């Protein structure tokens, strides 16, 4: 049985806006507009989409702090909105912009409280804390009041707080927001290990696609509250009708290569020419065709970077694209 199951999940917000002195307009915002997917135990899934796509709203429904307006939702067999408290013992959540930590007190105090709150057996608590302290480099921070921590330090503190009770699922809503390169690498390494060693299922929301590339074998892209892609990272290229680039170095400067079928001339820098072709097509016949007709010296094939693929996808996401298989 999948650990997380969404079936036609919806959330509609009603917003009231003043339109005149006394007149008010009610408008419905469909933040989540019929999303269905399942996540199995031990998966590490990226959940991405442009601002306002409905990612945080989904995460809130997954934790039970928002009640869905429609559809069905189960996490570990539990309906989150109805049994929020029971579910909370089995999931961990990090809201990147918010903190669970006690603002005025040392980090250690918040952990002690977590210990009590989740009734973690003493030995488990000690072990988990020691692990988090080591892997997230919190050793020097334990006795510092949270308000004196930097953003990145606080975030690491929050991630540790979400994991002390051995949750089965961890939701991370922008956990690397505002972190420097070193902190990001540390957090990613930690998450990877968590997933590999403990089998913790991770659902990760982020705007940093490197997070996804380094951590997730599966990505879901949502836009305007709808799932527009669900599949492997590789398949994203095709789904976003990405193009690959064949870069050829010719013996000398020549007019643009426009006569090779399946390739589109993009630009030339002296003897070097850039030809685009569909990401799903093979490069071999193109290379052969070019080599046959032109004095080819060297060549390389460039994969489109995921950023531009996704940018394209965000821009033109209208219909439903289903990429790779539902789950890897």
């Amino acid at each position: 049985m999948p650990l997380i199951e969404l079936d036609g999940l919806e959330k509609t917000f009603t917003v009231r806006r003043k339109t005149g002195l006394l007149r008010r307009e009610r408008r419905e915002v469909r933040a989540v507009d019929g999303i269905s997917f399942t996540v199995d135990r031990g998966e590490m899934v990226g959940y991405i989409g442009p601002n306002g796509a409905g990612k945080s709203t989904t995460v809130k429904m997954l934790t039970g702090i928002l009640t869905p307006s429609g559809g069905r939702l189960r996490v570990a067999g539990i309906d989150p909105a109805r049994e929020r408290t029971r579910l909370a013992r089995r999931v961990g959540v990090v809201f990147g912009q918010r903190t669970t930590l006690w603002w005025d007190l040392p980090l250690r105090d918040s952990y002690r409280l977590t210990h009590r709150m989740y009734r973690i057996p003493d030995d488990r608590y000690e072990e988990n804390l020691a692990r988090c302290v080591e892997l997230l480099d919190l050793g020097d921070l334990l006795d510092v009041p949270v308000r004196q921590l930097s953003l990145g330090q606080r975030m690491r503190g929050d991630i540790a707080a979400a994991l002390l009770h051995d949750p089965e699922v961890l939701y991370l809503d922008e956990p690397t927001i505002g972190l420097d390169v070193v902190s990001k690498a540390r957090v990613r390494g930690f998450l990877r290990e968590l997933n590999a060693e403990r089998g913790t299922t991770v659902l990760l929301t982020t705007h940093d696609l490197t997070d996804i590339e380094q951590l997730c074998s599966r990505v879901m892209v949502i836009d305007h509250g709808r799932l527009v892609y669900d599949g492997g990272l590789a398949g994203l290229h095709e789904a976003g009708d990405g193009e690959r680039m064949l870069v050829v170095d010719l013996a000398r400067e020549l007019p643009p290569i426009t006569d090779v079928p399946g390739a589109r001339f993009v630009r030339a820098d002296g003897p070097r020419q850039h030809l685009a072709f569909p990401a799903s097509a093979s490069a071999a016949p193109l290379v052969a065709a070019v080599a046959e007709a032109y004095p080819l010296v060297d060549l390389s094939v460039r994969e489109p970077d995921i950023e531009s693929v996704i940018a394209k996808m965000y821009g033109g996401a209208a219909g439903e694209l289903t990429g790779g298989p539902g789950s890897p």
Partner: protein
Amino acid sequence: MRFALFPPTSSPSLRTCSERDNMLRLYATVAAGGFRRHATYRVATLAGLFTNTVFGFVLSYTYLALWAERPDLGGYSSSDALAYVWIGQALLTVCGLMGGGFEDELIERIRTGDIAVDLHRPVDLQSWWCAANAGRCAYQLAGRGAVPLLIGALAFRFTLPDGPAGWAAFLFAVALGSFVSFALWYLVAMSAFWLLDGQGVVQAAWLTGLFFSGMLLPLNVFPGALGELAHALPWAALLQVPADVYLGRYGEGWGLVRAYGFQLGWLAVLLAAGRAAQSAATRKVVVQGG
């Protein structure tokens, strides 16, 4: 590898017992945190102490002038009236006479959506804040309550309670008063789920509390029906009842029980109302922010 999350518990009765222990320990930890949180702000405590003391002196001389005109006003001697002033100063923050001391923070969390984090905890929101507030009150009583009372007592030699039993009876009434205050202000804060900007409600509650808690003038002084009304409202449980327990006006036996009963009755009603508002809010209303 994976770890068992819920080690099986042997017998159900054993489990409920340790369950309660666990709960108590959790809330004790929360309360201790509330205490220490406020203890980190020493300068604020000192400033508060200073304000309470100055305010106490100003009110004392006002009351002295008033009681010189009308001795025995409201059945208080002038020495009783002075005690009343300083009790008011001592309980100002403990019993939330002019603001509960936590509702601004709670409202702000609701407004910004930080409440999401609180709601995700496997703990009841109201109990959590109640425990944290109890810690705050304990600190305020020690840090900001005791000293002005002592200064006032030295400066004016007002009425003191009747021995240790009198002090104990008073402290118990104060504890109940602080819980009633919590329940009241929690209810006020819950309005922020619907209104988002809780300031209007807070101000209305503040003004009502200022008047009906007897912070400006003892409720005994209010004439006729107004006085009776004031005595029946929950705000009377915050200052008037503890002060009258202090002054021994409830006597010892049934009178005291009646006073505590009044406080406990309002406590139950207000906590239940707060809980109802909370569950309506979390069921229907929206957590703000992305």
